[in-house]
């Protein structure tokens, strides 16, 4: 049956705005990246302002590049390609704009709260609960708009890119909600409902799937749309792209435990994570080859077309990092690679090479189309390309070299079997020069995006052409049978929503578990006791300052680890840790067995001026911990919240919180006074010292029998 052609005007304005937001937040996120890279190479860059210290800026960098730069880029691709693939305008312009402004406000809130130390203390999920709620609402609004647009589509077939977008939308919603569950004690502070090892597992289930479903699947969708468009060639094998999608979706969700190898996580869960991570090579490389083979018929374009250049570099890095990742998930490799700068190199080969590459390729493809005029200066785009390429090479090679040096030095032994470099600081000083190389690489990349932005702005501001939304004529495949088809589609949409809802409800149940399961949360190590009020306050400060960005609290199950740091960590030791603070990087040493290792005076001096106790240290100074005073009235609120989460405080602990706090604080003050330091008992530094001195000490009183089962 022949239908009449309909005229469709796409909403391109929303795409233009998302694209500009992508570049603006790319610049900001990468600038913060350059600043934190400088701080690692040259500690005075931490300044004496708390809001500019590394521990607070590093989460700002990761959140900005992932969710602001990456997020806006995803939305640019979705809004542009979805309408064209489905031959319909977005279902609701209003929802599109709520999505746009909602997301930018969330970014603004993140940019304000993270430097202030308002954080949940879990990597890539640092934002506090009100922002988490806003993310959920905005995400659902986008999801409704996308699903409704699919429902009113004028073509039957859903192109493979759309499947990748859908997987992103659904999975990220579930991951975000489950991982962000927390008990608020105020507008700016909450505690994760999970504790210790369980919190770690939820976090890395989230963390790795965020890599999978925020930094991989949406950008694969982007690739499957924009590469064929840019080179004017059909996908090499559409069949392979479908296999790529389904296998990726089914395998990815199980890989999270590879972040917790050699910890107290059950052995079978570790193996599960490792095996599925290895399996991921197959679909990933299938996708990479599919992309490269799509470009092959017009391979000569690589020489002069910046769009194609960026896509080729992106695919190459996708292939590299999806080979490297599974290798790093092998237990034996992970033992030496984990906690080193190799991980940082790996992440940036994926982020700068793959994500950055496809985003810039898409940008140069879209700008002339969206603004209806040629790119201001293609030569500048070429300069951008070379800055990006050289920048990445410098970045990742310096991090590989640093990582290899680290694990060589951490594991080196003398002929007598002792640690060759027992002082951790030596291993930091050995790689410090590589941090300068990394800074150079990152700076080149940053200059690249500045040039890109200049080029785009000059294109947009060029006189002449008019910016109009694209209008097409299309003969619908299915409009006359709309009654039945629409009904069917809506039914499917309904069924899909129900399934998602069920998935989310199950996520909600997880929230109740820590409460229901108090019995099984009772530590199997009787010697492990809840933190005192003072220590808990110190822990909150530890979380606020982002210490976990550089220090782990997890001595893995290997003799050499124990040789350097002390007894290995047991799951039962972390049962009161809301949130867990295992960390994922050792820029500084592990801290889990720090308690009792140094006198209070050492900690005091070390926090005020790390160089006074550890010459050459790159750690920021935390002078404000002396002047900042703790609000003691909050202590009973905090203990009460912990009790609700299953920490066995007694009523007297809560009612005497302030008295207990001061009693313990005064002991430390007396110690310091004897050493000639005068400091107020309510100073934050006293609480932090108490926490440091408590770390990992309960184990000394634990019975060997209990540890056997832990």
């Amino acid at each position: 049956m022949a239908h009449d052609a309909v005229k469709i005007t796409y909403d391109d304005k929303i795409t233009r705005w998302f694209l500009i937001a992508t570049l603006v937040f790319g610049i900001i996120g990468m600038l913060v990246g350059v600043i934190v890279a400088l701080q690692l190479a040259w500690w005075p860059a931490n300044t004496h302002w708390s809001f500019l210290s590394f521990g607070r800026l590093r989460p700002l960098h990761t959140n900005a590049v992932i969710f602001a730069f990456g997020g806006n880029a995803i939305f640019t691709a979705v809004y542009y390609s979805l309408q064209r693939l489905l031959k319909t305008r977005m279902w609701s312009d209003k929802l599109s704009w709520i999505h746009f402004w909602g997301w930018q406000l969330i970014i603004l809130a993140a940019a304000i709260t993270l430097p202030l130390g308002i954080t949940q203390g879990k990597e890539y999920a640092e934002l506090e609960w009100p922002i988490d709620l806003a993310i959920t609402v905005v995400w659902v609004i986008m999801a409704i708009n996308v699903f409704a647009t699919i429902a009113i589509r004028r073509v039957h077939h859903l192109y493979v890119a759309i499947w990748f977008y859908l997987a992103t939308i659904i999975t990220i919603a579930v991951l975000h909600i489950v991982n962000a569950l927390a008990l608020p004690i105020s507008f700016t502070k909450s505690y994760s409902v999970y504790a210790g090892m369980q919190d770690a597992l939820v976090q890395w289930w989230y963390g790795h799937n965020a890599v999978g479903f925020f930094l991989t699947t949406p950008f694969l969708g982007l690739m499957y749309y924009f590469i064929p468009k840019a080179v004017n060639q059909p996908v090499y094998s559409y069949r392979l792209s479908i296999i790529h999608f389904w296998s990726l979706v089914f395998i990815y969700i199980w890989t999270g435990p590879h972040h917790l190898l050699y910890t107290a996580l059950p052995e079978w869960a570790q193996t599960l994570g490792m095996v599925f991570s290895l399996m991921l090579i197959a679909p990933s490389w299938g996708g990479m080859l599919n992309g490269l083979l799509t470009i092959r018929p017009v391979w000569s374009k690589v020489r002069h077309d910046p769009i194609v250049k960026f896509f080729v570099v992106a695919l190459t890095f996708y292939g590299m990092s999806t080979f490297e990742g599974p290798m790093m998930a092998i237990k034996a490799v992970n033992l030496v690679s984990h906690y080193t700068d190799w991980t940082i190199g790996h992440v940036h080969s994926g982020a700068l090479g793959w994500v950055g590459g496809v985003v810039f390729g898409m940008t140069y493809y879209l700008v002339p189309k969206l603004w209806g005029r040629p790119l201001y200066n293609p030569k500048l785009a070429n300069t951008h390309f070379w800055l990006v390429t050289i920048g990445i090479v410098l970045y990742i090679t310096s991090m590989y070299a640093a990582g290899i040096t680290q694990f060589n030095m951490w594991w080196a032994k003398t002929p007598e079997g002792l640690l060759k470099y027992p002082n951790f600081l030596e291993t930091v000083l050995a790689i410090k020069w590589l941090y300068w190389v990394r800074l150079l690489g990152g700076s080149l990349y940053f200059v690249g995006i500045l040039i890109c932005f200049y080029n785009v702005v000059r294109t947009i501001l060029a006189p002449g052409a008019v910016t109009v939304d694209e209008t097409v004529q299309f003969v619908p495949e299915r409009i006359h049978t709309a009654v039945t088809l629409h009904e069917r589609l809506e039914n499917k949409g309904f069924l899909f929503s129900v399934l998602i809802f069920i998935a989310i409800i199950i996520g909600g149940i997880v929230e109740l578990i820590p409460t229901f399961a108090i019995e099984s949360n009772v530590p199997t190590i009787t010697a492990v006791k809840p933190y005192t009020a003072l220590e808990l306050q110190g822990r909150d400060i530890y979380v606020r300052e982002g210490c976990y960005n550089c220090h782990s609290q997890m001595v893995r199950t290997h003799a050499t680890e124990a040789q350097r740091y002390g007894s290995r960590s047991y799951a039962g030791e972390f049962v009161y840790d809301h949130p867990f603070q295992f960390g994922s990087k050792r820029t500084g040493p592990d801290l889990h067995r720090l308690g009792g290792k140094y006198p209070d005076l050492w900690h005091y001096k070390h926090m005020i001026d790390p160089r006074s106790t550890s010459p050459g240290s790159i750690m920021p100074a935390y002078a404000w911990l002396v002047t900042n005073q703790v609000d003691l009235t909050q202590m009973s609120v905090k203990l009460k919240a912990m009790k609700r989460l299953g920490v066995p405080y007694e009523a007297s602990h809560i009612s005497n919180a302030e008295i207990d706090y001061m009693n313990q604080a005064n002991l430390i003050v007396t110690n310091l006074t004897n050493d000639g330091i005068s400091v107020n008992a309510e100073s934050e530094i006293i609480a932090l010292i108490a926490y440091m001195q408590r770390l990992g000490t309960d184990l000394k009183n634990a019975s060997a029998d209990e540890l056997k089962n832990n």
Partner: protein
Amino acid sequence: MEVLFFLIPLSLTLAGAGLWACLWAIRSGQFDDVESPAQRLIFDDMEKAKE
């Protein structure tokens, strides 16, 4: 580690939703033709209406 007993069913639910979507796609003929959708993307521009 009782959280495993929730993460695993949750992951299975997600995988189940994926499986359902996959079966739906196959049954509704989404993958009956795995050649022309790739071609079609390229010829899209020819349908453009010149204002």
